[in-house]
């Protein structure tokens, strides 16, 4: 039996919109083990991004428990959350979220800047991360000088550079064409093979089939949770 890295119990997220309340998560529970590769699917507005943001410590839940590696995240202060974002989780966004005025290398170095890695070491690690996503020849290009797929590779290199155990990706192929999307998914496959835990949000069945387990959401709760049989896997 594998140990759980992520344990979620009765997670609720309610957005207070003044007159109305939006219930994005309605008491959601989920366990994810070390080195699992999970795809989260579901219709638009079912709370996938909301969950991923909470898992990534970008947002906090309204109630419920979130345990990460045995630590209660729900009780942490802002600095501790920043530390988790920095060291334990790599986040990949649909829209890349790169700093437009910095080149690829500087973008990838950014997490190291906030973890007191000495500048010389930073450079080496950022170069390695960019090489591992196949962008050794684009180090000094700015985001607007890169294609969508290349930008997402930079973003993945950035998510990897601090060696986090968990990679979260919210529709990482959503802004890319099918072929480029597949290249990106190959990268995730490698990462999983290297021992990372991967949680990926997507609405494309094809993409979800890269994973080993599909969790389907509906209206803020888990509707279905099933493994992907080896025959179906891409």
């Amino acid at each position, binding site marked *: 039996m594998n140990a759980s890295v992520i344990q979620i119990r009765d997670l609720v997220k309610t957005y207070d919109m003044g007159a109305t309340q939006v219930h994005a998560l309605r008491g959601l529970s989920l366990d994810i083990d070390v080195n699992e590769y999970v795809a989260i699917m579901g219709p638009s507005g079912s709370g996938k991004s909301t969950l991923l*943001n909470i898992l*990534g*410590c*970008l*947002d906090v839940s309204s109630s419920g428990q979130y345990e990460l590696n045995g630590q209660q995240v729900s009780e942490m202060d*802002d*600095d501790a959350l*920043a*530390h988790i*974002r*920095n*060291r334990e989780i790599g*986040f990949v*966004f649909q829209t890349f*979220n*790169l*700093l437009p*005025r910095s080149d690829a290398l500087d973008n990838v170095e*950014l*997490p190291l*800047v*906030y*973890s*007191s890695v000495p*500048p010389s070491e930073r450079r080496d690690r950022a170069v390695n991360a960019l090489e591992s996503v196949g962008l050794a020849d684009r180090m000094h290009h700015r985001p607007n000088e890169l294609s969508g797929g290349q930008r997402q590779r930079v973003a993945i290199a*950035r998510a990897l550079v*601090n060696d986090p155990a968990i990679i979260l990706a919210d529709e990482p192929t959503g802004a890319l064409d099918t072929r480029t999307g597949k290249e990106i998914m190959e990268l995730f496959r490698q990462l999983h093979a290297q021992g990372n835990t991967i949680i990926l949000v997507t609405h494309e069945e094809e993409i979800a089939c890269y994973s080993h387990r599909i969790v389907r959401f509906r209206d803020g709760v888990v509707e279905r949770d099933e493994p992907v049989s080896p025959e179906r896997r891409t």
Partner: protein
Amino acid sequence: MNLRETAALSIVGLTSHKLRTLLTMLGIIFGVAAVIAMLSIGEGAKQESLEQIRQMGISNIIVQHWDKSEDGLEDAINSDRNLSQGLSREDAEAIQRIFPLAEYVTPQREFKSKALAGSNTFNTMVVGTTPEYLTVLNARMSSGVFFSAEDVTETRRVCVLGSDAKRALFFFKDPIGQRVKIRSQWFTVIGVLEDKGAAGGKIGGVLEVRNTDEDIYVPLTTVLRRFQFANDEAELTQITVKVTDSESLSEAATIVRAIMNRRHRGVEDFKIAIPEELLRQSQKTQQIFNVVMGCIAGISLLVGGIGIMNIMLASVLERTREIGIRRALGARRKDILSQFLVESLMVSLLGGTIGVILGYAIPEVITLYAGWRTIVQPWTIALAFGVSAAVGIGFGIYPARQAALLSPIDALRYE
């Protein structure tokens, strides 16, 4: 992220918006330049009047002949003439006799004249006086001697040169024993005074002070005997009273005034001035000047600070996504706070630096064109930097806090 990196980061931020950065700094630049320039003008004026006053002697009372025709009071003159003959040696003797606190009483007869030595001429003030004047003036000899009591009683034609007069007439030659011609009379130079380095002017709007380094001193008796003056001119132009107890200068002045009034039958053909009082007066004026200028400079620094705050708030809004990205990658609140705070600090310190340079240049230009003395004091520069830093932090803290308090997800979602 350490401070050096934060600073490097904000330099990148600032240089990517050069014009905006410059405009943001303008308020600080002018505020700081104004502070330094004002203070240096004030200090220059203060030093100047201090020197002028010191040159008159801080424990002196000065009785000056008051030529009313200069002040446009022609009518008063003729009637006064019948009652009083103006300042005289008897006045000086009377003060010396009656007034116990007088240490020295020196009569002076001054007149403008051209002085000649060889082929050099110099427009000078000839001062006929007594040997005590050297002490009263607080002056020292740079060479030779001052004339003696015997020179006065013998009405000898000897003279002592002020340093500027010496330089104009003899350059670097030794003038002792040389002869100087004043209005067809020849005088032998027996001494030269040390440079006092003061410029002329009018203190407190009352007392004329000239550059005494340009004077030539001769025995009073010689002046009165050798030179022809108009009949209606007073015998003396000034009586200087050095008081033993400098604590009671104003009481002493009252007594001197009483003595003079009695002797002149109430005619006000003299003015009494106390340099020490003028000093205090000018210090008071100085203070008022400083307060007014301080307020003006303070207001422009305030405006500068508001300018910084405005731009920083706009910059926080504009860079909300960047803040979100940094926070998502592990930046703590205090990292974001220091990033924006250091940025506003850099703007204000850079503005302060340019302001200091400008604040240095403005007084130079003023000195060049208006001839005012200006002195930039080192502490005003320290003050300017201190104030700039305070403005940068004071007005930068609010926008920086706004940036730091954003939640990562809100910042990332910001459009």
